[in-house]
């Protein structure tokens, strides 16, 4: 090597340097309209958690009670959705009536609105009763099966923490978390290297399902939406 003077060029290989990654989270609401998810924790990981989980699950006995929970969820779902739809209709009718009052509508219109509201409230009561009955009938079984699934997860995924800790050490990076803003944006300053972004939120249309994302950060801005995520059962 020639003697170095001012300005000799050297290669740098392994260094800490921040870069900004930004994500936006949106999921469909009851009307199917894609809506921003606020206050959701988004985690940036220096490893692919799905591949670790998949490997651990492959080495374990099958997840228990999948079929049983699926069928229980299938019974629960229409009752929940009926109650949710009935609730939304009552809410809309209450708002509509308030508009009539504000606009000093004729007494006849107000009486019709009151009657419609009363009918919707009756429907809502029925839907709630249906939900409550299915909840009390199925809830304890679902809870019991979920506890057993949780035990299976503790056993099957028990070494996850130690694996990711050693992976974090190997790639010289730690997970970074942020919470989405009111319009669904989250960001983080990350060191160089490969990163994945992961997030999980309950499906507002079905409390036994969730939206899940685990995406490789191959660009500075990534959208966590129904197109990039998975809607899966919450076992």
């Amino acid at each position: 090597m020639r003697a170095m003077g001012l300005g000799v060029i050297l290669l740098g290989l392994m260094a800490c340097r921040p870069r900004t990654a930004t994500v936006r989270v949106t999921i469909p609401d009851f009307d199917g309209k894609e809506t921003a998810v606020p206050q959701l924790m988004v985690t940036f990981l220096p490893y692919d958690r799905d591949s670790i989980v998949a490997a651990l699950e492959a080495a374990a006995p099958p997840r228990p009670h999948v079929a049983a929970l699926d069928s229980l969820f299938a019974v629960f779902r229409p009752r929940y959705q009926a109650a949710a739809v009935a609730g939304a209709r009552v809410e809309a009718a209450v708002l509509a009536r308030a508009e009539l009052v504000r606009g000093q509508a004729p007494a006849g219109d107000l009486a019709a609105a009151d009657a419609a509201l009363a009918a919707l409230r009756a429907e809502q009561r029925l839907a709630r009763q249906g939900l409550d009955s299915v909840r009390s009938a199925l809830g304890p079984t679902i809870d019991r099966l979920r506890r057993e699934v949780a035990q299976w997860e503790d056993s099957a995924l028990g070494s996850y923490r130690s694996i990711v800790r050693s992976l974090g050490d190997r790639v010289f990076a730690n997970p970074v978390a942020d919470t989405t803003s009111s319009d669904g944006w989250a960001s983080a300053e990350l060191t160089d290297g490969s990163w994945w972004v992961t997030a999980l939120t309950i499906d507002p249309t079905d409390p036994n399902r969730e939206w899940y994302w685990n995406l490789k950060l191959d660009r500075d801005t990534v959208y966590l939406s129904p197109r990039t995520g998975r809607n899966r059962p919450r076992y």
Partner: protein
Amino acid sequence: MRCWLVVVLVAAAGLAEAQNVPLAARTKGSPTAPIVVYEMSDFQCPFCRRHAIEVFPTLEREYIRTGKVRWVFINYPLTSIHPNAVPAAALAMCAAHHNKFWPAHDLLFQHQEVWAPLKNPAPFLLSLVDSLRLPKAPMTACLQRSETVAQIKSDADGAVKSGAQSTPTFYVEGALVVGAQPPQLVRMVLDSIYRAKTAKKP
């Protein structure tokens, strides 16, 4: 890990501004050593840890103790990705007032994986005060002084002015060496500079 092909020529003025802190207390090597290396480092950076633990002891044995190199530590905490880097640097800077910068430096890097992920690293860092046998009251007072953080920021400002964008970065006689490099590469660099600086002129 993405490679950084970074070459930055620096003006010495940038680093000179960082010298309003007691550099002697965080300097190793002879004042007359022909080569001066400024290490711009972040105590929470894993690559700085790699350098400190895997490479620096070799360099110390071969170049610093032999009088070839004087090594100066400059704080460059990357606060956006390393929230505990400043408290850790503060511990080392306060230890420097008691001539224990380097033992604190070593302990911080040795235990980096313990304190780096902590939400509140203060209790663990204070436990290192005991391990270092430093006087607790003056250390606590020093850690709470705003001047301590101001000194660290002054270091970081100097590092930025010198052209450093990542850690560790080494300012070596007019050039920036970026990243934790293996000993053999650092040897090549230091040997070539040493030869150039000590060669007898005809």
